[in-house]
């Protein structure tokens, strides 16, 4: 498709880019201003760059604790999801046994499940297991509920790989585990990146389950940690904004590193919807 008036297309695309980026960039600039500057002059460059805002936010909030907790939750969840969902997807995509399709649909059905539907029993379950205020509770929930989407995507990816390599390996006497580990996993690596990124974002940004399960300040993730930080420093935006930037940076950095591959994968039909 070629536009007759490309300037019009670019114009509209740039406008939305500004609407999206503007507030985020403004947030970054504002975080360097002093409180008076934030309130009296919310637009425009800072007249002086107050890096001390960051130092102060860092020492006054338990940001490091929240960041470490969130990193543990996100990394452990993503690794477990990638490993378990790719193993399951390999079996579902490659082995034909009775119930195969049923298991696939069973995983898929979780996609339409609202969080509220399982929140109360999960809260009770975690309480009975003694996992309230323990990061493991949130990790287990993310891994379990992350299976639906991940299995769905990976099954579709694996079905698109030609069988030849695996058949050749089988003739050479490779075990199914070797085929999965040496052939299938390397071939679906780009898709694992996509699945991993989406689950990382979900885990890092997750709000509801940390809210109901993690109330001990030492076990909080950034989502709830920032909530309590704001509770203490209500309108001290010169402290809040640096804190907001700090907890946003990890996902943004991970996304920017992965974005080329991610965007290409998504638009190349990674998600056939």
């Amino acid at each position, binding site marked *: 498709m070629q*536009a007759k008036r*490309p300037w019009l*297309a670019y114009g509209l*695309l740039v406008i*939305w*880019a500004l609407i*999206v*980026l503007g*507030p*985020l960039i403004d947030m970054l600039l504002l975080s360097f201003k002093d409180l008076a500057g934030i*309130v009296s002059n*919310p*637009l425009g460059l800072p007249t002086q760059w107050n890096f001390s805002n960051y130092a102060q936010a860092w020492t006054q909030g338990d940001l490091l604790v929240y960041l470490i907790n969130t990193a543990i939750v996100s990394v452990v969840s993503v690794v477990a999801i990638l490993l*378990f969902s790719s*193993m*399951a997807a390999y*079996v579902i995509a490659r082995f034909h046994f009775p119930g195969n399709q049923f298991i696939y649909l*069973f*995983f898929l059905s979780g*996609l*339409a499940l*609202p*969080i*509220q*539907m*399982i929140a*109360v*029993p*999960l*809260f*009770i379950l975690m309480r009975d297991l003694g996992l309230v205020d323990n990061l493991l509770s949130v990790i287990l*929930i993310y891994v*379990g509920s992350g*299976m*639906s989407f991940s*299995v769905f995507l990976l099954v579709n990816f694996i079905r698109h790989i030609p069988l030849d390599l695996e058949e050749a390996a089988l003739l050479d006497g490779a075990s199914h585990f070797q085929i*999965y580990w040496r052939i299938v996993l390397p071939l679906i690596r780009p898709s694992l990146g996509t699945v991993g990124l989406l689950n990382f974002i979900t885990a*890092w*940004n997750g*709000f*509801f389950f940390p*809210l109901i399960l993690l109330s001990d300040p030492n076990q909080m993730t*950034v*989502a709830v940690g*920032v909530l309590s930080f704001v509770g203490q420093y209500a309108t001290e*935006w010169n402290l*809040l904004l640096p804190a*907001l930037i700090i907890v*946003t940076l990890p*996902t943004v950095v*991970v*996304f920017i590193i992965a*974005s080329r591959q991610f*965007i*290409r994968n*998504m*638009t190349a*039909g990674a*998600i056939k*919807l």
Partner: protein
Amino acid sequence: MVFLGPALLLYLLFVAYPFLSSLRYSLYNWNGVGPLQDFIGLQNYTYTLFSQDFSPFFWRAVAHNLYFFLLSMILTTLIGLTLAYLLMTINERRSRWFQTIYFLPMVVPPIVIAYLWSMYLEPDSGTIPVLLDSLHLQSLNVPFLGSTTLALPTIAVLQAWAGMGFPILVFVAALINVPGELLDAARVDGAGRWRTFFSIIFPIIKPTYYTILTLNFVGAFGAFDLIYIMEGTQAGPNYATDVVGTLFYRTAFGGFGTTAQGMGLATALAVLGFIIVMIASAILVNLQRRAVVQL
């Protein structure tokens, strides 16, 4: 089988089993402590659907969720589809740059989006009121988040702003698959841009459009984070932003503005919300299947 084991086990324990437990809890009068013994049949459901005390809360929340869905659907269609179409008309490398930018707010934690916009919309001192004043548009300087009529649409627009990246990517993926020969044929036949879009392109990507509608519906009924953070458990002002998610939270876990509390009642509420989502998804998935064109 060993390969399926861990995935299946975790999914059974932390998704399937809680789902069934919800159905069971919803039949009891239970506050979450002690044994489940006060079996009351469907009373939690009738209380939610018909009682004078509680059903107005439920139906208002459902109406707010539907409103959320309609607004997000309109914005996704107008903005998302248009931008995806425009992205197809430009150089691919630049198009990827735009797509990356558009996706960015999706990776920003909701807590950050909520506070950032609370600050912008702060009456009088926030960036938006200051901006409006400097443009001599004082009449538009209203308390967006404190007004019973504006709070809900404001949050719905913010949600759409933050989430637009995903439908754009999905639409682009669908548009790429529209065969070029069809478009060439249309041009040869003298069809204009609008005609080509509505007669050829849209019918081909219609299944994708329905999928996005389904995801929007599920998303709208799951709305919680921004409302809870910006308007509190009471989903203020005066319940003007109360959705099934916040009503559920209050019913299950309490908090300011709670009218009725109980784990059994909360699960009944969740089951009803789930039934609404299931019915809508079934209809939309059906429409989607019928819209698939064989090329």
